């Protein structure tokens, strides 16, 4: 029994990570309507910034904050400079551009920061509790806590601010929004900036819980995040969060109990998506309108 809960919590912890990156993917999908293959690498670069700052003596929480700001600006710039020229082209073309970005950003990260493995510090103290034999680590609490706060902030931004309203308008009908005076271009930049910032936070939180920061740190996470975003239906931030947690938990529980699946753990999220999509082609929470590729 204790093992079950330990697995469950471990799944929730991983799920929180997938959820955060999935939220970034959904933000971009909702605004520009594309799948951003480079989301993980953007988060990787942000994480390297945090690492670099901490080696320079900056306290971890401040480094994370700085990285978030830099990432926001970076994301906005990327939308304006790299994505805007091809916004009107076919979705396949834009996908290729994000693939190009994936390669370029990963490569440039290594160029700037080197390719070695580095230890990443976390901003909270490491501790493990053992209530009733169940392992609860401070990592889990921190990750889930931050994810929760992030969701609340995003919810507040989207539902109760003028910017959020404009954002939702652009996501649904950019031309009508334009006629209402909404600066669509600038809103798109905000969307990308926000996604990049969310990714930065996700990276900064998850990498310390792994063995170390390496150039491939975000790649498997990205795959799971895609799975979570698809499962959640791409349309909603809430869907991405729930789906991320589901993917994390499902993965932890199945690989923990079904030993035949050991080593093929990626089968779980994708098997899950396939199953869900067969019965609900727009994902668990998606609206049936989604047909953007």
């Amino acid at each position, binding site marked *: 029994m204790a093992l079950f809960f330990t697995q469950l919590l471990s799944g929730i912890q991983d799920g929180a990570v997938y959820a955060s990156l999935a939220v970034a993917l959904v933000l971009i999908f909702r605004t520009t309507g594309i799948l951003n293959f480079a989301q993980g690498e953007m988060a990787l670069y942000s994480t390297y910034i945090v690492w670099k700052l901490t080696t320079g003596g900056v306290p971890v929480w401040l480094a994370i904050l700085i990285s978030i700001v830099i990432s926001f600006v970076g994301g906005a710039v990327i939308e304006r400079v790299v994505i805007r020229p091809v916004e009107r*082209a076919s979705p396949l073309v834009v996908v*290729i551009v994000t*693939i190009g970005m994936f390669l*370029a950003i*990963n*490569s440039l990260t290594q160029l700037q920061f080197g390719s070695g493995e580095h230890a990443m510090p976390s901003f909270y103290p490491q501790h493990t509790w053992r209530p009733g034999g169940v392992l609860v680590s401070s990592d889990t609490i921190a990750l889930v806590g931050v994810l929760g706060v992030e969701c609340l902030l995003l919810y507040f931004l989207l539902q109760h601010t003028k910017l959020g309203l404009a954002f939702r308008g652009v996501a649904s009908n950019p031309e009508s929004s334009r006629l209402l005076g909404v600066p669509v271009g600038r809103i798109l930049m905000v969307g990308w900036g926000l996604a990049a910032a969310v990714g930065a936070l996700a990276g900064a939180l998850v990498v310390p819980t792994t063995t170390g920061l390496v150039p491939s740190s975000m790649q498997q996470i990205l795959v799971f995040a895609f799975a979570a975003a698809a499962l959640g239906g791409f349309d909603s931030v809430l869907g991405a969060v729930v789906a991320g947690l589901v993917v994390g938990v499902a993965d932890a529980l199945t690989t923990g109990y079904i030993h035949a699946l050991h080593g*093929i753990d990626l089968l779980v999220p994708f098997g899950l998506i396939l199953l869900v999509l067969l019965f609900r082609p727009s994902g668990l929470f998606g609206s049936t309108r*989604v047909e*953007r590729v």
Partner: protein
Amino acid sequence: MTRTQQQAIRLVIAVIAVAVVVQFFAWYFPTHYGPTDTRLFASAMYIGVAAMGLNLLTGYNGQVSIGHGAFFGIGAYITALLMDHQYSWFGLNFGHQNFLSTIPTVAVVTFVIGALVGFPALRVKGLYLALVTLGLAVVFPDLATRFVKGTGGTSLVSLTSTELAAPRWFPSQLSAQDQWAYTMAFAFALLGLVAVWVLARSRFGRSLIAVRDHEAAAASVGIDLARTKVTAFALSAMYAGIAGSLSVLVVQNASGDDKLVTFQTSIEFLVAVVIGGTATVVGPLIGGFAVVYIQKWATDAFPNKPIISPATFGIVLIVLMYVLPDGVVGGGRRLRGLAGRTLRARRRRDVNPAPL
């Protein structure tokens, strides 16, 4: 000169040109260029083959897949295992086959698996299909590791030079291993090209496009949506599988168990399709060359900084998409159209000068 005479002359010139080009690449190139060049060219060709298949599915039929690396891997493993091992299943003995005899098996198996994947794909559309196929690409290596690696952890595939070499009946000027690999790749690229050309012009080809552009309309004129879409999947999987088999000869190995490789290969196919020009016959083949040779150029351009080459490739991809969003073939067509229009306009202006 009448129009039919003009057309006949143009046709003759085209046939001669094609014959010259084919002859050059079939004979001159492999005998006058070294193994590195021939292997590189051969790899461009098998990527082109896979891309042509993927184009049937994605370009003509609108189903985006980023998982065809899995079919590629399946083809590679089938060929490698059939050439390398002896099997005895249900009373049938087979194995230790030569390369060409593995092709039918690869074709059938990948076709069937492609069809099997195509069925659930009917329910999943657009972006979600892309992601589910991504799952395929990502899960396949794990499965391959499980079933092909064996308990020792080492690969079951260890191809000897005799297995990889050209058969005895093959002309001796082209019998070096790299030349043999090259010729096979070339032969199948041509075959694949002709097949795509025929398919594209056939009723099936038109159904593919109709289903892509407007499913409801296509169904209303009697096109069987399921059959069209599943067949497209099966065919594209078959092309990818054969490309995988070819890769065994060229690379002299089968490495489907590397997660990154399968994903990378899937992406390469898609990139080749888009760069070359979606829904064109020759485009994906050109795209295959683009993918291979641009990467080579990117690696060679910065010999002492290998890290830069993926960045260079990535940046080239982005720039290509700005400049040629319709791909090389598509862009070429558009330029020709533009040139045609300007020429015609100029002629008309000369004939009808504006009234004073």
